[in-house]
C-alpha cells in the first residue's frame, strides 16, 4: 500500500461502514457498535500518521484516476487538512463512545442503525471537504454534509424537529447555491476549479475581470457564512441544534459548523490570497461581523430558558471569536482561530454531552431545574463546570489559552476596540454560565436525599465525559505541543 492512498482509504472505510450497518440489521446491535469503533480507531490512527508524515516528510498529492489536476480531482494532504482531520476523528471517536452508551435518547430502537449510517456518511463528507483541492468537489461534499446533518436533526419522530430541519434545509440550500454561484464566477474568470491552478491565475483575472472576482468573493463569504452560522445568518442554528439528539448536537455544534469555516479559510487564503483580500478590505467586513456576533450571540444566550438553546446561541458567539481571528488576516490571528476551533470543539462537546446525560436521566432541559444537580450527577455537572469555566476563559483551561492568543493577535494589529469586545463578551459568558454552576453546586440542598436513588450511569457514558474534562485541562496546561502543528498549518496557508 502506498502512503498516498491513505486519505482515500479513510473515506472508503467510512463509506464501507455506512454500507455494512444495514446488512448487520439482524445481528445483535453490539456487533455494529464494535465494528464502528474499530473503523473510527483505524481512521484516527491513519490520520495521526498522516499528520506526522506531512509535518516531517512533505505534502501528499493524489489525483484520482491519474488524470492531471486541471482535468481531474486532486486530494491534498498538507499540515492544514491533516491537523483538522485528526481533530475531527478524535472528537468523533469520543462522541461515538458516548453515543454507544445508550444515550441516543428519543430515537426508536429500530432506527439506531440508521443514525450510525448517517453519522459515518457525515464524517466521510467532512474528511472529503478538508482533503479535496477542488472547489466544485468541495460543493459536492458540502451538499452531502448538509443533507446528512438535516437527516440527523429530523431523525427523532417529534413534531418540532421537522420544522427546524426544514428551516435548516432551506437556509443551507441558499448557502450552497450562493457558494456554487461564486465557484461559477471564478470558473468564468480563470477557467479552473482546482484551487492551486486558480491561485496561480487569480491575480491576472483580478486585473482583467475585477467585477467577477469581487462578486464571487461576496457570494462565497455569504454562502459559507450562512452555513457556519455567522451572526446575521445564524437564525437556523439554535432551533436545529436544540431539536437534534444530544450526541448529534455535539457533532453539529463542535465539528460541522467548524468545517464550513475551514472551507471559508481555504477560500480566502488559498483561492483569493492576501493581496486581493487586502485590496478589497475584506478584513474590516469580517471583523465587524465577528464583533457583532460575539456580543449578540452572548446577549441572546442570556435570554434562553432551554439549556440546549442557550448552548446553541453560545456557539454563535464562539463562531464570532473564530471569525475575529481569521478576519485579522495575520499569522497570530489565524493561529488563535485554529486553536480556538480545537478548544471550542472540546468544550462544546463536553457541554452538550454532559447536558445530554442530565436530559437522559432527569428529563429536564430548563435552566432553572439545575438546582442541586451537582449532588445528583456529580460527574456530569463537574465536566459541565470545567467546560463552562473554559468558555468563560478561566486560566488552566484551553479556553484561556485561545482567548490569550486572540488578545495578543488583536493587539498586534492595533485593533484595541476588539480587545474591549472580547473582554465584554467573556463577561457576558460569565452571566449565563456561572449561575448554572452556582445553582448546581451551592443551592438547594433539599435534593441531597436523592443521592442514593439515582440510576447508575453506564461507564461508556462517564468515560468520554471524564476524558473530555481532562483534555480541556491538559490542552490548557500544555498548549505548546499542539501549537507546533497549528503553526505548521497556518504557514501552509499563508505561504
Amino acid at each position, binding site marked *: 500500500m502506498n502512503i498516498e492512498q491513505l486519505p482515500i482509504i479513510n473515506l472508503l472505510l467510512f463509506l464501507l461502514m455506512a454500507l455494512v450497518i444495514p446488512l448487520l440489521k439482524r445481528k445483535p446491535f453490539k456487533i455494529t457498535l464494535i465494528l464502528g469503533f474499530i473503523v473510527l480507531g483505524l481512521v484516527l490512527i491513519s490520520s495521526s500518521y498522516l499528520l506526522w508524515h506531512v509535518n516531517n516528510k512533505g505534502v501528499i498529492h493524489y489525483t484520482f484516476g491519474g488524470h492531471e489536476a486541471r482535468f481531474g480531482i486532486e486530494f491534498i494532504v498538507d499540515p492544514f487538512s491533516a491537523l483538522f482531520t485528526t481533530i475531527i476523528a478524535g472528537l468523533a471517536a469520543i462522541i461515538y463512545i458516548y453515543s454507544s452508551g445508550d444515550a441516543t435518547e428519543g430515537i426508536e430502537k429500530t432506527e439506531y442503525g440508521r443514525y450510525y449510517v448517517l453519522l459515518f456518511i457525515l464524517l466521510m463528507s467532512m474528511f472529503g471537504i478538508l482533503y479535496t483541492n477542488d472547489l466544485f468537489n468541495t460543493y459536492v461534499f458540502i451538499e452531502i454534509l448538509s443533507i446528512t446533518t438535516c437527516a440527523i436533526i429530523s431523525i427523532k419522530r417529534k413534531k418540532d424537529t421537522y420544522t427546524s430541519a*426544514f428551516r435548516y*434545509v432551506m437556509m443551507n*440550500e441558499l448557502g450552497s447555491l450562493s457558494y456554487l454561484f461564486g465557484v461559477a464566477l471564478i*470558473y468564468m474568470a480563470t477557467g479552473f476549479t482546482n484551487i492551486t491552478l486558480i491561485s496561480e491565475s487569480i491575480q491576472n483575472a483580478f486585473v482583467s475581470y475585477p467585477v467577477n472576482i469581487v462578486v464571487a468573493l461576496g457570494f462565497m463569504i455569504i454562502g459559507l457564512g450562512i452555513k457556519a452560522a455567522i451572526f446575521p445568518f445564524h437564525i437556523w442554528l439554535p432551533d436545529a441544534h436544540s431539536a437534534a439528539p444530544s450526541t448529534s448536537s455535539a457533532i453539529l455544534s463542535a465539528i460541522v459548523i467548524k468545517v464550513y469555516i475551514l472551507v471559508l479559510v481555504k477560500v480566502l487564503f488559498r483561492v483569493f490570497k492576501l493581496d486581493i483580500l487586502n485590496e478589497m478590505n475584506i478584513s474590516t467586513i469580517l471583523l465587524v461581523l465577528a464583533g457583532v456576533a460575539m456580543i449578540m450571540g452572548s446577549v441572546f444566550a442570556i435570554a434562553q430558558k432551554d439549556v440546549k438553546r442557550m448552548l446553541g446561541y453560545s456557539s454563535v458567539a464562539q463562531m464570532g471569536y473564530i471569525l475575529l481571528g481569521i478576519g485579522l488576516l495575520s499569522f497570530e490571528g489565524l493561529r488563535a482561530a485554529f486553536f480556538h476551533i480545537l478548544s471550542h470543539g472540546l468544550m462544546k462537546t463536553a457541554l452538550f454531552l454532559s447536558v445530554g446525560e442530565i436530559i437522559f436521566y432527569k428529563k429536564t432541559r430548563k435552566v432553572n431545574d439545575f438546582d442541586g444537580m451537582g449532588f445528583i450527577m456529580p460527574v456530569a455537572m463537574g465536566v459541565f463546570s470545567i467546560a463552562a469555566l473554559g468558555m468563560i476563559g478561566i486560566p488552566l483551561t484551553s479556553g484561556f489559552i485561545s482567548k490569550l492568543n486572540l488578545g495578543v493577535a488583536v493587539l498586534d494589529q492595533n485593533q484595541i476596540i476588539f480587545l474591549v469586545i472580547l473582554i465584554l463578551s467573556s463577561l457576558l459568558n460569565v452571566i449565563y454560565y456561572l449561575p448554572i454552576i452556582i445553582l448546581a453546586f451551592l443551592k438547594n440542598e433539599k435534593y441531597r436525599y436523592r443521592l442514593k436513588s439515582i440510576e447508575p450511569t453506564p461507564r461508556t457514558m462517564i468515560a468520554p465525559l471524564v476524558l473530555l474534562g481532562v483534555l480541556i485541562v491538559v490542552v490548557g496546561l500544555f498548549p505548546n505541543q499542539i501549537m507546533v502543528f497549528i503553526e505548521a498549518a497556518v504557514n501552509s496557508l499563508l505561504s
Partner: protein
Amino acid sequence: MWLDKIVENINYIGAIALFVIGLRIVVTHSNLIKRIMGINIMGTGVFLFFVAIGNVTGGVPPIINPNVDDQLFINPIPSVLILTGIVVVVSITVYSLSLVVRIYENYKTIDQKELSRLISEENDEH
C-alpha cells in the same frame, strides 16, 4: 449598442434573473412547497450560468468528426459538472418534500405563518 450587449449576454442575464426570482420565492413565500420550488428555480439559474460559461459561439459538441478539420468545440466541463449539481438539487428536493409530508401529517398545514402560530401556541401551553 446596449441592445447588442444584452443579446450577447442574454444567457447570463437570464441566469441571474432566475436566481433572483428563486431567491425572492424562498425568502418571501409562506407556502412550504412553493419555497422548495424557489430553491429549484434558484438552482436552475446557477446551472444555466455554469453551462453558459462553457458555450462558444459557433462551437459544436465535443465529438471528433474525422471528415471535418479544425473544428471549434464548446467547453464540455461545465455541463459535466452541472450533471452532478442537478442530482444534488433533486435529492435535496426529495428530502425536503418528505419533510413537508411529515409536517403536514403532524400540523395539518403547510403554511409557514400558520405553522409558527401553532408552534407558539403549543409552547405557551407548556
